[in-house]
């Protein structure tokens, strides 16, 4: 008798097996989302994202596609933005870390109607070819000129060392940053 019951039990559990699989599938819960509120180029932004979302993905998903996705490993600088005024690789910052912070992308530095001298010189001197590195390069150049208003060519090279460009060979980019520094210095001179 005992063996019979055992057999019954075994048969019962075999029938239940597919049900258990579906139970496991139902147990999946998507990653918890976190509310993130921060400022991008002066505008208040409210978003929601899982904690593992990088600032790069967060910004791009919100429509700030001027922030480019290059290597996602901090090597290429294409995603460079200012975080509270400091240049960072957006791919190396968690979106949730931006809570309450101020982000500036290349569009916050100057707009198409009102170009920043760095942007103007990049266009004038042909420092843009495919354009993919340009947003990050301009943000990096902006921080460099904030710290060193009149850098030497060597200092410019060191200042954009974290930004890769596969088209220009860098010469025209360095020319443009040098020219922008000159223009910014002379316009400052005029103002004072």
């Amino acid at each position, binding site marked *: 008798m005992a063996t019979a019951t055992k057999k019954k039990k075994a048969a019962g559990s075999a029938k239940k097996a597919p049900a258990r699989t579906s139970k496991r599938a139902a147990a999946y819960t*998507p*990653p918890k989302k976190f509310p993130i509120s921060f400022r991008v180029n002066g505008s208040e932004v409210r978003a929601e994202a899982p*904690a593992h979302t*990088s600032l790069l993905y967060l910004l791009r998903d919100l429509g700030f596609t001027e922030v480019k996705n290059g290597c996602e490993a*901090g090597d290429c600088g294409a995603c460079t933005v200012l975080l509270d005024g400091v240049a960072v690789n957006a791919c190396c910052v*968690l979106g949730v*870390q931006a809570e309450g912070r101020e982000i500036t992308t290349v569009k916050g530095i100057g707009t198409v109607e009102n170009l920043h001298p760095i942007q103007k010189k990049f266009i004038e001197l042909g420092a843009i070819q495919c354009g993919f590195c340009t947003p990050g390069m301009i943000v990096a150049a902006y921080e460099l000129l904030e710290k060193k208003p009149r850098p030497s060519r060597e200092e410019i090279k060191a200042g*954009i*060392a974290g930004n890769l460009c596969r088209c220009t060979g860098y010469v025209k980019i360095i020319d443009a940053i040098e020219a922008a520094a000159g223009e910014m210095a002379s316009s400052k001179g005029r103002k004072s």
Partner: protein
Amino acid sequence: MRGFDFAAPTTIQGALKAAKGKKYRFIAGGTNFLPDLRHMHDGLPQLVIDLSRVDALRGVSLAKGEVRMGALTTMTDFLENKIILREAPILAAMSAKFAGPIIRNRATVAGNLIDGGPAADSVPPLLALKAVVRLAGPGGKRAVPLDEFFTGYRRTVVKPGEIITEVAFPAPGKGHKWGYYKLARRNAMAITVVGAAAVLKLKGGACREAGISLGSVNPAPIRCYEAEKILEGKAVGLALAQKAAEACRAASAPIDDIRASAEYRKLMCEVLPRRLICQALGIPLDQG
């Protein structure tokens, strides 16, 4: 990705409490964590604790003859902080070769240490400066000399639940001599092939105290005690510098990898310390 929970405490106590009983990971700049995250399908933490809002971990000060750097001191701070520039310019020289300016803005000294990598660039200069790492954890505070901090390849003495609060070193004083060299395949964004640092304190014509260290040639960066002993208490010339450099070479145990062969690294473990010691002390180098 399964995702993880996130906390951003503002105090050290809050950070320690958050880590309790969790499979956690502390982050600050994120320059190690986010690139790693893409390959972290298994070892994903349950909880990521962002320490970058803990103000008590910030700031550089000089107290009791000791330079104290909060855990969140960045590589950019190494290049710009007045106390560091005045007391230990070797750290600025190292930082100028550390990755690129954008990474330096986020990468912290504690992150570079806790990552435990053999090529962590801030370690050789800090070893040569005889730095100490201060930790806080559930069991209280403790201090560990940096040369006892690493226990192997990417292994440290840090216990579960502990955080680095401060990295400090005795100010080497006015007139100390130093040298740093990062041998790498590019000028920026490069992983070090061999890193070497020397800090020499002089008295009269003699070397009173020496700190010599190598990176990227052992499972973790090392201090070359034998080389230090050879120099200490002596008026150093080329012959003694050579002897110390040979001791550095003997202390190294490099491996072959995609960046360089073990054989080449072994040679450089002699060339670089000799060059640094000679340049620091103004000894003319006949060769090398």
